[in-house]
């Protein structure tokens, strides 16, 4: 439909447009979308403003300094950035293969009824509060790591720096494992939906060409769903980066950079949650807020990289966007 109306005064034109209903919907949804942008920019602005003291004092050194000392007013983000990246990497290294395998089984191999029941349970897992996972970590994963898993890993891989040094049960590896347990439901749930949405014809065509069931799944269905699967992985990554309670309960909370996964560490989200309430000095508080800004920046960069990766893989095949 074209709108060939004679020119009216501004207000009349606006009121007339509203009568259509479409315009109202347009306005409402636009406001909602603008709200998101507004909230994000206000958040960044506020973090930027309130971290002014710390930014002025430490500048770029904030990223490299390894000390976090409230008594001597010396703050650096390096151990926290390291801890956040390492725990998230460990979590993804465990959760991605596990999650993807489960999703493939549930969408391609399991009977539909079983698949629906299991995915209902997985959705429940995704809704469990993180402190519960933290308790699970303290009472099950930590003792297991100290008495069984840790010594076994040390025996086999102890020669690498990754598994050297004393094993207290808490540390990067334990935090990574607990995070993996927490994020795996996201990967399974989203990947399964994406795999199920792959058109039937794709599978049938592959089978008709003489592919085995596994070949059809791995070489046709999974590449088709690649964008969505990657989306699920980045959703999981976002959750892992920002997780606070469960991590602080099992990571040992010691701001140090160590190659060993057994060593205790610290993450950005954990230190903010731990120290914010009792932070008395102005510079101390400002440094904690700057850590928040750094976490925001990290999430921003990783999400940007994710977008680039998705675009790049789409070019190399898979479903046309």
């Amino acid at each position, binding site marked *: 439909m074209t709108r060939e109306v004679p020119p009216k005064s501004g207000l009349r034109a606006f009121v007339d447009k509203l009568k259509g209903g479409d315009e109202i919907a347009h306005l409402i949804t636009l406001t909602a979308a603008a709200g998101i942008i507004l909230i994000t920019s206000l958040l960044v602005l506020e973090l930027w403003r309130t971290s002014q003291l710390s930014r002025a004092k430490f500048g770029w050194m904030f990223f490299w300094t390894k*000390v*976090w*000392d*409230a*008594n*001597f007013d010396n703050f650096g983000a390096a151990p926290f950035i390291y801890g956040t990246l390492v725990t998230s990497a460990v979590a993804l290294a465990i959760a991605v293969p596990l999650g993807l395998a489960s999703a493939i089984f549930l969408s391609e191999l399991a009977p539909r009824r079983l698949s629906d029941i299991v995915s209902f349970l997985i959705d429940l897992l995704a809704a469990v509060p993180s402190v519960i996972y933290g308790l699970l970590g*303290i009472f099950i994963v*930590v*003792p297991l790591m*100290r008495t069984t898993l840790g010594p076994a890993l040390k025996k086999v891989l102890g020669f690498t720096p990754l598994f050297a040094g*004393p094993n*207290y*049960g*808490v540390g990067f590896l334990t935090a990574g494992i607990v995070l993996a347990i927490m994020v795996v439901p996201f990967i399974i749930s989203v990947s399964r939906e994406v795999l199920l949405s792959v058109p039937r014809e794709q599978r049938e065509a592959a089978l008709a060409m003489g592919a085995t069931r596994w070949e059809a799944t791995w070489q046709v269905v999974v590449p088709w769903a690649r964008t969505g699967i990657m989306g699920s992985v980045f959703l999981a990554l976002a959750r892992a980066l920002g997780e606070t309670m469960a991590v*602080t*309960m099992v990571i*040992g*909370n*010691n701001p140090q950079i160590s190659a060993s996964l057994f060593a*205790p560490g*610290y993450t950005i989200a*954990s230190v903010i*949650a*731990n*120290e*914010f*309430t*009792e*932070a*008395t000095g102005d510079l101390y*508080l400002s440094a904690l807020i700057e850590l928040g800004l750094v976490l925001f920046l990290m999430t921003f960069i990783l999400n940007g990289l994710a977008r680039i990766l998705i675009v790049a893989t789409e070019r190399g095949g898979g479903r046309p966007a």
Partner: protein
Amino acid sequence: MNMKKTFVVVSLLLGMAALAAAQGGQVLLNAAGATFPYPIYSKWFDVYHTAHPNVQINYQSIGSGGGIRQLQAGTVDFGASDGPMSDEQLTASKFKILHFPTVLGADVPSYNISGVSGELNFTEKALAGIFLGTITKWNDPEITKANPGVNLPSADIVVIHRSDGSGTTYIWTDFLSKASDDWKNKVGKGTSVNWPVGLGGKGNEGVSGLVKQTPNSIGYIELVYAAQNGIAFGKVQNAAGKFIKADLASVTAAAAGAAKDMPADFRVSITNAPGAAAYPVSSFTWLLIPARIQDPAKRDAIKDFLKWMLTEGQKYNEGLTYAQLPKPVIEKELKAIALIQ
């Protein structure tokens, strides 16, 4: 009862309540701060409200740092802190702030050593060395000499500390700062410090959980928490050279020992206090009250509450395992209430 009657009764009740409020001058006080004394504070505010229905005190246990900040920002009527405000903080403040000690707290060393079940004695040097990382084995001479007859293993010591900022850490590091110059110069005291060694646990439950799970570990926990959960802990050597087990009496004794030299503004550390019976890792916790309160109703309510807290209120302490303030301190504080204008 039919609708009409209900309506009449309800409006009558509402009218009475409004009248009472108008007569009694309903006073609502907002306060925020330390988490450690929260159980006793909420008990006090509740009992006080029952006795004085027109005064309601709303306390948010957001932490000492938050309490100080909110007080300075003027969002609360008074604050509460586990550590006294520093001179810099007081000079930076726009208005004068008074400190009133309310109850006493203490930290105890809790440990888990394979093959050792008895109560260990710790010298201040031993504790400072362990937490600095200079004493690394359980059979170090500094530990064994205080524990004759105990067979301590040559195992590595795992140090456990609080990861969250906390008044408990303030007391512990204040004690270590007095025990060791090295600690004072390298680490210092505060609600969270740059720990030379060890693992961090969140909250008392996090520290005691890690100690319980980790062989050959030692950590510090709040006396109240240890007592309520039946956690065993060691004795600490006091300034008089005696090994003292923390309990309500020995903590009050520490405050009494410090009462003689109590400064007029009550900002005093009582770690390592003199007195043969004094437990050395003890501390006051304070209410932070503005010296000038504009609203006369609020001012009277706060002054009356302080008076009540120092006399009647102290009776509720021991039921919640908080040590009572010693008499000389209470008398001094009662006089100091007049400073609130």
